[in-house]
């Protein structure tokens, strides 16, 4: 994939283990966050990069919105909601700036 100036190449490849940032912008003022509370701080695995999209956190305030890579990230379900059986998973779309190498 060629990287246009506003479409950076994905930092994480399929299979990469990542951790979702344990960050709570909700405590710091008005915001629009697409990363569900229940995966913050959790380990997951990148399923695939989905492409780069304007950051909704900026779009929500009509600010210039640089494109950010979006990923399908897979999590084990049982630890998230204390239910389900081993092997059950939850897949969530998460933007790159919410992910750290793990």
């Amino acid at each position, binding site marked *: 994939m060629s990287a246009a100036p506003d479409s950076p190449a994905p930092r994480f490849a399929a299979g990469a283990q990542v951790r979702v940032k344990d960050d*709570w912008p*909700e405590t710091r003022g008005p915001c629009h966050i697409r990363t*569900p*509370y*229940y995966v913050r701080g959790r380990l997951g695995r990148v399923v695939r990069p989905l492409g780069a999209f304007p950051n*909704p956190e900026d*779009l*929500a305030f*009509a600010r210039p919105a640089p494109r950010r890579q979006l990923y399908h990230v897979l999590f084990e379900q049982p630890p998230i909601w204390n239910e389900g059986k081993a092997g059950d998973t939850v897949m969530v779309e998460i933007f790159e700036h919410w992910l750290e190498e793990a």
Partner: protein
Amino acid sequence: MTEESPNRAIHDIGGIARFRCTPVEHDEAPPDAFGKKVDAIRQLLAQKKMMTVDELRRGIESIPQDEYFALGYYERWLRSIAALMVEKGVIQQEDLA
């Protein structure tokens, strides 16, 4: 457990116990006349580049909790649209009285 997180935003309700185990409505519920009017306003404002759905969602998410759960789906939209138009100076708060 994470669901007790005091930092969770009002709309961020995945897996929260009190929203579970309610019957799923399988029938398509078309908007009523009020809902259609609200959506028409939203579409017009979008066409005129006066707001986006991202802003609409941000406005819905910032509705105070008591009001959020008292309002219906399109009432939340209208509440957000009105707040956005005040924020942008298109209308004045007094106009909403």
